[in-house]
């Protein structure tokens, strides 16, 4: 038997614990002793920590307990998923010349993937098959905090599969890697993918994760991604969240990078039910550059919570953080940005800002910047703005014949522009720009406009 239906008569915690016991041997590398040890410790911690409640500061605005407390199916082995290449065709980003790894319900499907052009020494594939890889041994479980983060503990306990990327020293991967995550569940489904990206010293890679739903099933995805970048390395990680409106997720990313390296993350959230992004980035060496960019386009009753931490454990580093929210309807966004500068981490430049455009009175934004600085020679700044569209600007545009809806859409796109400018892949920024326009209510559709703008700038 490869699936278990969680017993909803039991308490949420007990439900997972008994599922764990029943299916003990079925996880990733069931025979790998170190993975097994981590799993045992993790289920223990999961039990001790319990499901987060809104009484906890980190979950004050996001009720994850009620999302977890649904009668999902918990797959404990690969399922037959009914996905064909033709199903995926519309979601491959046009003009993006990329290596593509397709993950169906959290598991890589190599038959649907396009990895032929991959340089031989680079590994992109299934975490399940990576057990013997030295990079797996060296990095798996090293950065994800299964000790204090309860959902990371849960993921670690049930770890089965996910994407594994290894870029060896001195290899600069020219084409980006597109991880196409598709939910193709027939019934309510709980998935716990686990990804590991290792970019060694002097190596360079760009990874794009795009999350989609192919079926309307209710899903909850509890992902943990670990990222390592060696000295002078470079990793740019984009995540485009476009799951269905009954798909919820907690995506926990842990990034660790060494001296003189760059680790950038861009998170675009366009749909989903409850979306929680936990991000912990640790630049551990001199002259690191750490970037966190995010754009949330909220509509309907979407709830998006970005919880970020830049942990400056080392001196002489720079971090930049910019999150923007565009909130329609009854959508809610939460932004909690923490920057921690340790006592000996001198000469840190840390910038953080988050701006929200609240387009409807029923939409809500909760933001909380947290700067904890224990070193004395640092430059840190943060700024928060919340506002509406400038009605003077709307009027001025209308006097030039631009209809009101287009005027509002153009101004919204302008608001998001600062984040879009950070995207280094044209195909992605165009894609995101179109999504920004398209995801706004129908009347905001700007497709033609965006295309002309790119023609003009070409």
């Amino acid at each position, binding site marked *: 038997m490869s699936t278990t239906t969680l017993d909803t008569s039991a308490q949420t915690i007990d439900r997972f614990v008994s599922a764990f016991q029943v299916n003990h041997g079925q996880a990733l590398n069931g025979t790998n002793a170190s993975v097994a040890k981590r799993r045992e410790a993790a289920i223990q911690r999961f039990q001790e920590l319990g499901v987060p409640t809104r009484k906890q500061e980190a979950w004050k605005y996001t009720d994850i307990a009620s999302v977890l407390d649904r009668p999902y199916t918990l797959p404990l082995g690969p399922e037959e998923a009914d996905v064909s290449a033709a199903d995926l065709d519309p979601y491959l980003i046009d003009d993006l010349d990329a290596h593509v790894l397709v993950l169906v319900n959290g598991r890589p499907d190599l038959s649907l993937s396009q990895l032929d052009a991959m340089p031989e020494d680079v590994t992109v594939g299934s975490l399940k098959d990576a057990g013997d890889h030295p990079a797996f041994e060296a990095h798996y479980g090293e950065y994800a905090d299964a000790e204090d983060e309860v959902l990371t503990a849960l993921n670690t306990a049930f770890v089965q599969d996910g994407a594994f990327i290894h870029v060896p020293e001195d290899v600069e991967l020219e084409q980006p890697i597109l991880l196409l995550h598709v939910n193709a569940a027939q019934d309510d489904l709980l998935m716990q993918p686990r990804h590991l990206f290792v970019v060694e010293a002097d190596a360079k890679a760009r990874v794009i994760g795009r999350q989609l739903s192919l079926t309307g099933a209710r899903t909850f995805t509890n992902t943990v991604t670990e990222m390592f970048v060696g000295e002078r390395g470079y990793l740019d990680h984009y995540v485009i969240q476009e799951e269905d409106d009954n798909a919820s997720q907690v995506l926990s990313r842990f990034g660790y990078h060494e001296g003189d390296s760059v680790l950038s993350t861009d998170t675009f959230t366009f749909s989903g039910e409850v979306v929680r992004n936990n991000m912990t980035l640790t630049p551990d060496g001199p002259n690191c550059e750490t970037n966190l960019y995010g754009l949330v386009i909220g509509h309907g009753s979407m709830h998006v919570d970005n919880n970020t931490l830049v942990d400056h454990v080392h001196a002489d580093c720079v971090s930049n953080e910019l999150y923007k929210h565009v909130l329609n309807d009854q959508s809610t966004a939460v932004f909690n940005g923490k920057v921690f500068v340790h006592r000996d981490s001198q000469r840190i430049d840390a910038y953080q800002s988050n701006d929200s455009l609240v387009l409807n009175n029923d939409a809500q934004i909760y933001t909380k910047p947290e700067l904890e600085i224990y070193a004395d020679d640092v430059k840190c700044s943060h700024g928060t703005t919340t506002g509406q569209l*400038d009605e*003077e*600007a709307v*009027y*001025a*545009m*209308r*006097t*030039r*014949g*631009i*209809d*009101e809806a*287009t005027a509002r859409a*153009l*101004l919204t*796109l*302008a*608001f998001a*522009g*600062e984040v879009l400018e950070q995207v280094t892949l044209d195909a992605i920024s165009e894609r995101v720009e179109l999504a920004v326009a398209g995801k706004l209510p129908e009347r905001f559709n700007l497709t033609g*406009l965006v295309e*002309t*703008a790119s*023609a*003009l*700038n070409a």
Partner: protein
Amino acid sequence: MALLEVENLHVSVEDEDIEILKGVDLTINEGEVHAIMGPNGSGKSTLAAVLAGREEYVVTEGSIRYKGEDLLELEVEERAEEGVFLAFQYPVELPGVSMTNFLREAVNSVREARGEEELGAADFLKLVRERAKLVDLDPDLVKRSVNQGFSGGEKKRNEIFQLAMLEPTLAVLDETDSGLDIDALRTVSDGVNKLRSDERAFLLITHYQRLLDYIEPDYVHVMVNGRIAESGDKDLAIRLEEEGYERFQREPAAA
């Protein structure tokens, strides 16, 4: 039929009980250039805003007919499509909205309304270059966000550049001359003169007679306390320059 017929126009501010325009009459025919002068706060910009369709102003009495139709029935953007253009006294900055996106949207919606075809990228760029030259607008400004970080004079010049791009039938210029340096005033005026035609009318709001040396008006009106107090030809402007507005303000309120 006159292009614009303003009759006994009374205008108040939406929320407040203040009447700003108190019975304005003004008729403008195709191809004419009219100037309105008058003391600060007399209602000149309010008249311009009502013509453009600003919603905070409420017409309590009177009418505005444009091309024989009721202008007040039209939305702001519809007026623009019908050829009404207002060059703002205080142009608005549109941070992050590129001039090209903005102009292209504007030009094409106005063209569509006129039954003309959308301009393709190449033709559009050609038009931009040509019209920028007409008002001597620095072509680098076209690569920036609308008015963002533009100098006061650059913003004013940009208004006339937009006028040149949109080719309106009735162009209202609200103090376009203030903020322009002496040379800029001349180039912008030259640009406006080149845009004069038998079909296109102008309403120039100004405080300075100098502008009217460059752009010669057919009529000059004096607005005082929400009314046109006197109308004449360009010599009226010269007289005002010498005498000021004192004699109008001493006149009794009733006409």
